[in-house]
């Protein structure tokens, strides 16, 4: 064990700076988040992931966010075990009818202010399962959605960009200056 630990000290750090991917969706998010809510949240977000019937592809990539390459906790993002501890619900899957009630209960158990992120093609609009008798066809049909991250499944980079946008989204006038500061912060951490 000692050798493995020493090796991790000696080896170069694997964590990479975030490759910025600004989508229209992320830009639009700026308008939605009001300053008061951001002030209350500070620079950290607690995320509760809810699988509303995905194929588990999205979960694989969400789990990858915790590995050394993406290391989502450096951004102040962390996954929590209960919706009662969460600011954000990160929902995957086309929302099966068998999961709809559980999703609604998780949403109701999440204290306000809260945000909902629909991750993956299925969560965005039902994806390949939109026409099924067993699915309601996207998270929006059950609860209000603040951000959509498309992809089948979305890459860890796309997921991270979306989640970091929740922390940094702000009115357009401030954004340039602020994002330059953010970049410096990220670089100094990595």
């Amino acid at each position, binding site marked *: *064990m000692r*050798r*493995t*630990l020493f*090796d*991790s000290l000696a080896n170069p750090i*694997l964590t990479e700076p975030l490759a910025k991917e600004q989508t229209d969706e992320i830009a639009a998010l700026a308008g939605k988040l009001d300053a008061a809510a951001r002030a209350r949240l500070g620079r950290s977000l607690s995320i509760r*992931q*809810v*699988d*509303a*019937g*995905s*194929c*588990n*592809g*999205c*979960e*694989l*990539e*969400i*789990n*990858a966010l*915790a*590995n*050394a*390459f993406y290391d989502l906790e450096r951004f102040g993002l962390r*996954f929590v*075990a*209960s919706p009662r501890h969460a600011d954000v619900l990160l929902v995957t*899957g*086309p929302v*099966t*009818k*068998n*999961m*709809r*009630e*559980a999703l609604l209960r*998780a949403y109701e158990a999440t204290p306000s202010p809260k945000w909902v992120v629909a991750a993956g093609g299925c969560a965005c609009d039902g994806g*390949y*399962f939109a*026409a*099924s*008798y*067993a*699915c309601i066809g996207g998270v929006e049909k059950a609860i209000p959605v603040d951000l959509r991250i498309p992809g*089948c*499944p979305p*890459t860890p980079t796309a997921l991270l960009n979306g989640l970091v946008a929740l922390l940094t989204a702000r009115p357009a006038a401030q954004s340039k200056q602020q994002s330059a500061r953010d970049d410096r912060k990220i670089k100094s951490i990595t």
Partner: protein
Amino acid sequence: MVDDALWQALASRLSDGRSSLLGLWGEASAVHMALYDDRNKSVVVATRDCPSGRYPSVARFHPPALRLERALRDLCGLTPVGLPDARGWLDHGRWGVTAPLGAAPAQSEQATATYSFLPAEGDGLHQIAVGPIHAGIIEPGHFRFTANGETIVRLEERLGYAHKGTEALMTGRTLAEAARLAGRVSGDSTVAYAYAFSRAVEAATGIAPPARAVWLRGLMAELERLANHLGDIGAICNDASFALMQANCAILRERVLRAASRCFGHRLMMDRIVPGGVTADLAPSGAEALRELIGAVEKAFPRLVDLYDNTASLQDRTVGAGRVGAALARQYAAGGYVGRASGRDFDARRDLAYPPYDALTFETPTLEDGDVDARVWIRIREVEQSLSLLVAILDQLPPGAVATPVPSEAGEGMALVEGFRGDVLVWLRLDGSGRIARCHLRDPSWMQWPLLEAAIEGNIVADFPLCNKSFNCAYSGCDL
């Protein structure tokens, strides 16, 4: 096509252990059963017509068929006469329709009746209900524990939360559309499912994909196995609170996914295998990326294996926990690491050899202990086997085309492909216009979930995550 007498005879072959149950599925007015004869290494599919909507239950004689028959009843509306369990399985009474794959799907109101779990009675017993949403980032399912203090006396699983109606969606679709759905039955096994689906189509239409495509499929299948096993080994140790293994295994897993992305343009290699071949040839820098990857894993992995083997506090958790006896593994025909860790020596790549595996040499590890530790060791050995298979495939990769057109012919086909969890079965019938008439996909976890209930008995509640992770059964894969 079989009559009642033969159907019963097959059921008794299953119950006295002469055959293993591979699958049991239905259509509007027929049931199909796939059996594997362990001695001859051959597969038989029996079909029984059910014009009356009834057939003799197999689960009455052979319990492993129980959930398959409950699911069949929910989806096709066929009644298994004598089935000892009247409860639904996939149908939670929320679809607004009953028997969606049956002859006459009917509108239905939302069911209000609660699901009654099997009772466990005694002094000091209490129940713990977990799910469908779990504490971690995993799929939805419900576990009902009955415990005496810390000790679990009974676990009952309730699944079906991820039911997406995949088989109904496939009906009437083109092969290309259906292949994409097959690749989304269980995301971690997307290669195995697309592979099995494509082989079933090829069996139905009597075509053979070009040699290069066959070998590229093997390459993708081994990459998928490697990625999942590496992820699992780390995650199992993490559930015993040994985060160091998880951190290191996750790095290796990420390297595999990145190499896959460089080779085939998608981290999980989704939609790369299609009937007739593959959609993506190995990228020009792919072989080099893979050799780099193999080098990196071969360098780092042995040290992690030592770390696992020499950490007493970790072994203390995994050795002896969640034991599955050899008799149960054989009875349920459990595939993959669950079966192999309990002495069931079956590997579809070897026993029902399909190309390219018929031209490759590899070992299928088996152990007898059947505990969490054995399931970890099977994965470790399979990582080593996959690495050597990757090298062998790269060395022998033939040149040429990677796809051939698929004719629009009617026919039935079935295929078994060894995924990382075990054998994935796909059976389908094509309608002659290049569309799916009926397609059934059977996840290996159908035969593994019930064993988890048995394995956990007598363990403490706190060891459940560890035992569960060592099984890593598919939720979406079984819920369809």
